[in-house]
């Protein structure tokens, strides 16, 4: 059976389990009756659930301005008046479309499997704004059938209730809360220039330290400098690094990749993963590769930059999303057209371009 979900919801209550089966049967019935060709969403406990916020899926910059300048009532009214006008695409849009492409391929190879991507719209908006969001989803023919409009409440409890594997939002506070609760999460940024992304392959790029791995090595660099860092890494080459917030998401991607390999589709696999790290291959890179191996994880391409800027390389890779813990790299990626997502984790948050951010300055 699938082990994609780390948190197994133990339904020890028999009646509860029976009720869930009834819910599932009714949903199945409904979707099979629909005249459209929309596929029905997978069972959450077997799926890789990605929760996106409304501002990452759609471009709501103008609407946000109305909210900030004129207040909640005017904002909701505006959304209702423009209900039938579809919203423009946001930074997570290409990522979501790529997830749908992978699902299509998976359904072809494994028609009865529930191990698919499950996309949930998780938004703080009031339900009245929901109608415009749903109309926009239909307009672009996105397969998003699950959503949660919390009407102002924090979405964190709901993220767990929907068994979320990855949460993308524009709100840094919510993302930080999610990471503290152990849910992989990142703040999305729209790139300054547009690039042409693959429509047949989902491409995901990760930074290493404080994203896939913990920030233990990062701490050494910041507090003791690079030389100490290189020495330390060489000495501990065979000791695996601790996990970082996005490790589970890489793992989930890996499990889906294996399903393609099992059907001889390795060369044509619609998921490709990249490691883009400032470490250098010669000195500190080995530990990273050995750690991944010890976790039983594969990464398709590992790129060691030895401190060179990430922007140009990412421009060549063209990922649908790039995760990094340092704003400095996020800015660099954005400038050159890469969709970047900031992971607010670890010691990197207290530094800006290598200098410690003095808390006194904030007064």
């Amino acid at each position, binding site marked *: 059976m699938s082990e994609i979900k780390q948190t197994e*919801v133990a*339904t020890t*209550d028999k*009646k*509860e389990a*029976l*009720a*869930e089966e*009834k*819910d*599932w*049967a*009714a*949903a*199945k*019935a*409904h*979707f099979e*009756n*629909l005249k459209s060709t*929309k596929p*029905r*969403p997978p*069972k*959450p406990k077997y799926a890789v659930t990605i929760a996106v916020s409304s501002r990452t899926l759609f471009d709501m910059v103008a609407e946000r301005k109305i909210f900030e300048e004129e207040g*909640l*009532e005017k904002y*909701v009214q505006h959304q209702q008046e423009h209900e039938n006008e579809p919203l423009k695409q946001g930074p997570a849009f290409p990522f979501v479309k790529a997830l749908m492409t992978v699902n299509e391929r998976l359904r072809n190879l494994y028609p009865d499997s529930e191990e698919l991507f499950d996309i949930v719209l998780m938004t703080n908006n*009031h*339900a*009245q704004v*929901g*109608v415009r969001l*749903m*109309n926009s*989803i*239909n307009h672009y023919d996105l397969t*998003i*059938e*699950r*959503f*949660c*409009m*919390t*009407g*102002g*409440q924090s979405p964190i*409890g*709901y993220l*767990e*209730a*929907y*068994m979320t594997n990855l949460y993308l939002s524009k709100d840094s506070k919510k993302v930080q809360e999610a990471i503290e609760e152990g849910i992989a999460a990142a703040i999305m940024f729209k790139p300054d220039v547009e690039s042409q992304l693959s429509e047949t392959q989902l491409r995901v790029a990760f930074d290493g330290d404080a994203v896939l791995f913990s920030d233990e090595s990062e701490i050494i660099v910041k507090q003791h400098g690079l030389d100490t860092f290189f020495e330390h890494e060489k000495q501990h080459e065979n000791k695996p690094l601790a996990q970082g917030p996005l490790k589970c998401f890489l793992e989930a991607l890996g499990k889906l990749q294996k399903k393609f390999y099992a059907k001889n589709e390795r060369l044509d696999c619609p998921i490709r993963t990249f490691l883009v790290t400032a470490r250098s291959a010669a000195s500190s890179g080995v530990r990273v590769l050995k750690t991944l191996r010890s976790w039983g994880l594969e990464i398709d391409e590992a790129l060691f930059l030895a401190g060179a800027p990430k922007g140009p390389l990412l421009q060549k890779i063209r990922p649908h999303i790039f995760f990094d813990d340092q704003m400095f790299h996020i800015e660099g990626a954005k400038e050159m057209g890469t969709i970047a997502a900031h992971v607010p984790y670890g010691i990197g948050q207290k530094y800006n371009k290598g200098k410690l951010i003095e808390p006194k300055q904030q007064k």
Partner: protein
Amino acid sequence: MDDEKNCTGPLIIALQYNDLFDLDSMSASTNTDDALPKGRAVTFIKAVQIVNERLVEQKETESLLFEVILIAKECSEEIKMKIVESVKYYGLEIGKFFFCKKEELINTLQSNKVKLFLSTDRDDVCEALHTGIPAALLYDQCDDHVLKVIISGDSIGFTEDSLDSLSDFGFSETQIETFKAAKICMKEFAVLIGQMRRRFGRENSPLCICVLTAWGSTNVCASALKTLRGWGLDVDEAFCLAGAPCSPILAVVKPHILWDCGLHNMRDLATQS
């Protein structure tokens, strides 16, 4: 807009005394002079009282208020006394008491123009829905001071044909009929609670209305939201599950009132806490 014309308050809610007081937890050693131990409905009544207070704060002569009536089936004289005393003891504002026989329940509800019958007993709720009385489940709510109501998006958003086709998937005729009956009953309640909700702004409201679509697609939920809006009810929160399990969401929302419509007849609320 002249709210006076629309309003046909008060919004009468009926409860049964065994939901108000937890008689099962009383043992032989319980002091008979003490008030009856509190049941699930006490938190509900306190939340309702807060809504009433806020409504009156805004308009002293407000007539669209909640009114709670208590029904007790088959009680001894002793218990009747204890009920009245305990209600006073806990400071619960209960408009009327009805002591009746088991068979008289439905009549009592109908003759008092009850706008909502709340019970933890699913069978009672189904029976009431069948006879056209709006009924919903009194759920395991939180202590939050906000009265939370969940309305079933499936029952409002689904079309007649989709409902009939459910019989192919193991749902009985009775269940499907109860479902259809629920939609009709729900309208009057929705109109009244919608008016009440509009007395407050979007933020800091002591009343929160949610729509939960358990099986339908996004279109079913959108249809439900538009229908409710047409009835004058602007919903605050919306959840669409497309078959995902409901209980984790309910555990986060913790509503007081859950319009369940009887299709989940396997769930026994009394064992969940």
